[in-house]
Each structure stands twice: as structure tokens, then as C-alpha cells.
């Protein structure tokens, strides 16, 4: 990157890290919500 590697990759790596972590966390939130519902159903049954 013409000597600008630290700056370019420092930007892209952090961006990629956040944009991979965020969807994973959102999916985990959704899975947990479903799991909590199922547990609540079992308790009530």
C-alpha cells in the first residue's frame, strides 16, 4: 500500500472485525430469545 499499509489495513481489519462480530451477536440474540421461549413453555407444561 505504498507505505500506508498500517493505516489502510488498520482501517479494514477493524471494520471487518466489527462487521463480522455484529451479525454473529444479533443471531445469538435471536437464538437465545427462541431458546428462552422454549424453556418457558417447558416450565409451564
Amino acid at each position, binding site marked *: 500500500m505504498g507505505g500506508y499499509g498500517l493505516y489502510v489495513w488498520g*482501517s*479494514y481489519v477493524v471494520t471487518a472485525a466489527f462487521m463480522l462480530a455484529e*451479525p454473529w451477536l444479533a443471531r445469538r440474540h435471536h437464538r437465545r430469545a427462541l431458546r428462552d*421461549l422454549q424453556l418457558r413453555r417447558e416450565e409451564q407444561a
Partner: protein
Amino acid sequence: MTTTNRLRFFTFAAPQRFYRLTGALVPWLWAVTALLTVAGLYVGFFVAPTDATQGDSYRIIFIHVPAAWMSMVLYLVMAFWAAIGWAFNARLAFMVARALAPTGAMFTFLALWTGAFWGKPTWGTWWVWDARLTSELILLFLYLGYIALVNAIDDQRRADLAGALLAVVGAVNVPIIYFSVKWWNTLHQGASISMTAAPTMASTMLTAMLLMTFAFWAYAFAVVFTRTRAIVLEREQHTEWVGSLAAAKR
């Protein structure tokens, strides 16, 4: 109760219909995100030339500008849905507003981070308190403040209303960010893209930037829909349709 299959303006205001529709859309949104990202990065790194003044450091633009645009757009969308929830007492609108905040905050942080990493080689500094950077930092505080506020109040309805007030009042910051480079003497450069004049950047650079902008848009839809679906399940847990969904997922 009879139901109609006609599409009305408020058809997807019902959490159940929204949940089903977004469940079908999300995989396609991820596919579009992936395609646009690959296309954008290919054009940005292998087609767009090296800049005459900034060398290869300018390639940060392909994530910096999309992140900054998303940070502003998502705030306005969040404020819009919070206001709709307030005006029409629409539960789903409040849920969408809550789902937007973390993604908006993330893009704001990334705009600031990539901006700092671009500023250091270009301006010789990681940060200046100029109008654009400062107002973008305030945007980050507004997002974080909204998230903290709605999570701090136990009563969900009061939390939604308090959050809506903060979101709507804070929306004045967005035009300040946008026009800051015109209104004040800033270190941050002025607009290269305008609605009324031709862009002042090379077409391949512009193409890559626009591809990445649409990629970030599709990403935002995908992740915000996923988060909203989780919130819908939490808030609508006492409804029959959620109950039967939980039973079906065993």
C-alpha cells in the same frame, strides 16, 4: 375474525407479519451484501488507480464514507421510527428503533476510526476538534445515550417514549454533520459528491465507493432485521403466534 390478504399500508406493522417477511428476506440481504462487498473491494483495490496526492492511503475512502453515510442515515431512520411509535403507539416501530441503535453506533465508531487512520497520514494528526469530526463524535454519544437510556428504564413503554424524545431531539445533529464542512472552516474536506453537480472524483473510485455504500446498506437491513426479530420474540412472548413458533422450533 376474518383476515384479508390485501396489502395495506400498515400490513407489516403487525409484529407477526413483519417477523415472517423479514425471516424470508434476511438470507437474500446477506447474499446481496456479500456480492456488493466483493464487487466494491475488487474495483476499489484492483481497478481504481493510486491517487496522485494521497497514494494508496485514499483507499480508506471505500469504507470511511459508506460508514459515515450509514451513521447519519441510520440515526434519521431511528428517529423516524421512534417518532412513528410515539405518534401512533405502534409497538413494532419502537422495536425497530431499538434494533437500529447498535448498528448506527457501530458505523459511527467505524467512521471515526477509519477517519483517524486516514487523517494521520494525510493531515499528520489522528484527531482535530473541527466541526465535522466533533459533530460525528456527538452522534456516537447520542447513539450510546439512546441505548443506555432505553435500557435504564424498567417500564418498557416509558423507556420507548424517553428514547423517542432523545432520538428526535438529537436528529438536529445530522444536518449539522452534513453541512459542517460548508458552514465552518474545517480541516475535513468538503463534499465531493453533490446532488447538483458532477462528482469531483475519478469514476472508478466513485464506482467502488457507491458499491460499498450499497453493500453497507444491505448489511444494515440484514443485521437490523435480525435484531428486530429477536426483540419481537422477547416482547411478544405472551402472544399465541410466538407460543406456537416456540413449539414448532422444538
